[in-house]
């Protein structure tokens, strides 16, 4: 049987459970913040990418002068700040390399209960952009027909074939010809209807809010943007590659990201100081014991190793607790972030993230190593003759 040197840090850890517990909590807060930051960062990126994929388009066309970040927010369902003429659609469709161009007139209304209902007037070209859609029933073809998102249908108790009053509009009825099955996107809350009908209901004859363009070859994006600018209507259009748009979002959340990063850094520093302080106390209280170790033949490196292992053990325990806290608090954090961020991808962030977990474990080890520095140095400076000092009783 070989006794492991790890029993020394391990037992030290258990010697003062309250102090250890408090130190672990300090570390766990820092780790929880780090986990949330990394998980949020990665979840946000993944969510945006999923959203982009769901849109099925590469380019957003909006009227000139329309602030395109505002426009892109509106993709989530809102009232648009400006409109463009439906005549441009044909010109866009005529540009070589455009596989599909979907016209849309979007309007967001409140139902009597104050809940948001988003209407999108469009045509069947939408289906070319959304091959992943599952529709119970069929896509609307005539006026007075609508396709309802599953969440809306659930909210109002709608079924295919029902004749319903359109929420948010006065005295307008329509037949539900199709229900859109769950997409995990904003469209679960949309009502799609024929473009002409939308233009009539919202008194925007021959107008659109935006056009979504799908390219035959997405790798030719820059060239296609130039071509669309060059077409007859190009002067009046703002041609926005959606990838640029989502990059803009990433920048919009920079302030939130920096806030979280600051919290992580401050919490990390506090944890380092806390662990270092706890270790310094433990080393100070154990001066004679460390002297005994040295007298029994422990090298300076052995002493450093024990203190370092103590720090890393505490930090790893903190990492475990911190990750658990972060996972448990992920829902609340998301609710809070939704109130602060201009755009949160539908579907939210995943609570679990392997990468964030790995980052936390590495971060905790680094934190422990940093905190152990001064205490380890002090401990290995304890001379062996310290074993002889202090005749006070005890063992």
């Amino acid at each position, binding site marked *: 049987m070989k006794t492991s040197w790890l029993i020394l840090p391990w037992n030290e850890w258990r010697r003062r459970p309250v102090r250890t517990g408090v130190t672990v909590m300090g570390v766990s807060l820092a780790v929880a913040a780090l986990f949330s930051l990394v998980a949020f960062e990665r979840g946000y990126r993944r969510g945006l990418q999923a959203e982009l994929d769901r849109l099925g388009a590469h380019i957003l066309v909006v009227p000139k002068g329309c602030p395109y970040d505002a426009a892109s927010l509106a993709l989530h369902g809102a009232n648009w700040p400006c409109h463009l003429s439906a005549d441009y659609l044909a010109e866009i469709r005529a540009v070589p390399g455009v596989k599909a161009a979907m016209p849309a007139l979007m309007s967001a209304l409140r139902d009597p209960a104050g809940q948001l209902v988003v209407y999108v007037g469009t045509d069947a070209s939408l289906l070319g952009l959304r091959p992943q859609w599952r529709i119970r029933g069929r896509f609307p073809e005539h006026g007075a027909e609508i396709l309802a998102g599953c969440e809306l249908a659930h909210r109002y108790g709608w079924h295919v074939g029902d004749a319903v009053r359109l929420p948010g509009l006065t005295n307008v009825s329509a037949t539900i010809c199709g229900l859109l099955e769950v997409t995990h996107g904003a469209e679960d809350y949309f009502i799609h209807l024929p473009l002409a009908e939308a233009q009539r209901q919202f008194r925007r004859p021959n107008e659109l809010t935006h056009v979504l363009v799908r390219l035959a070859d997405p790798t030719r994006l820059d060239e296609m943007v130039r071509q669309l600018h060059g077409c007859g209507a190009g002067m009046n259009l703002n041609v926005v590659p959606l990838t640029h748009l989502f990059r803009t979002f990433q920048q919009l959340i920079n302030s939130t990201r920096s806030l979280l990063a600051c919290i992580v850094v401050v919490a990390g520093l506090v944890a380092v100081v806390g662990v270092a302080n706890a270790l310094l106390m433990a080393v100070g209280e154990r001066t*004679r*014991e460390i002297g005994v170790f040295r*007298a029994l033949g422990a090298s300076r490196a052995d002493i450093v190793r024990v203190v370092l292992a103590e720090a890393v053990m505490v930090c790893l325990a903190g990492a475990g607790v911190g990750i658990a806290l972060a996972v448990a608090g992920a829902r609340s954090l998301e609710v809070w972030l939704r109130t602060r961020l201009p755009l949160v991808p539908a579907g939210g962030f995943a609570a679990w993230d392997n990468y964030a977990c790995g980052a936390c474990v590495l971060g905790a080890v680094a934190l422990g190593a940093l905190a152990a520095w001064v205490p380890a140095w002090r401990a290995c400076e304890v001379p062996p003759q310290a074993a002889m000092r202090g*005749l006070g009783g005890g063992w």
Partner: protein
Amino acid sequence: MNPSPDQAVVAAEALTKVYRRAAEDVRALDGVSLTVRRGEFVAIVGPSGAGKTTLLNLLGCMDAPSSGRLWLEGREVQQLNERGRTHLRRERLGFVFQHFGLVPTLTVAENVALPLVFARRTADGRVSRLLEKVGLSSRRNHRPHELSGGEMQRVAIARALVNEPALLLADEPTGNLDSVTGEAVIALLRQLNAEGLTVVVVTHNPALAGAAGRQLRLADGRLAG
């Protein structure tokens, strides 16, 4: 005096230790020369402040003398660096303290095995054999606070022997014990010495000093008589 470094376990020549303090220098040890041969049992006695612990620290390679020379088993200690002295303590010396110096969170067996941990060595039954020798086999999984003072000191002696040292150094090993429990420790030290172990103890206890084969009297940092 001319120490013969080759035969002696300890040979010291004019060992002097001066502690520098703010106001004055304290000459804790002043030209001490001595020899301890293999198998001897030596007691260092003398009044408080005479320099007994200081001498034991020097003999135990825990501190460096201000001047003088020291050989342990024929090797001159001054020529060793910090690592060499650590190695010497680990492999050739065993220590017993007045305060026992057991780790409270470790069991008796783990405490005894501690020097093996620092030496990166396996126990190979040594821990059990030593616990049997000191009469504490049945307490191997107890913690120190569950033992009496005399039992703790016997555990500490077992720990000091686990790396098979050439020399056992003890500073007031019965200082924290009453006379009855002290007797058991003295008997154990005598038995170990009878089995061939070289022992140097510092003590105020006449019973322990009497058990030793030779007494060295220290006063004001010098050997008397």
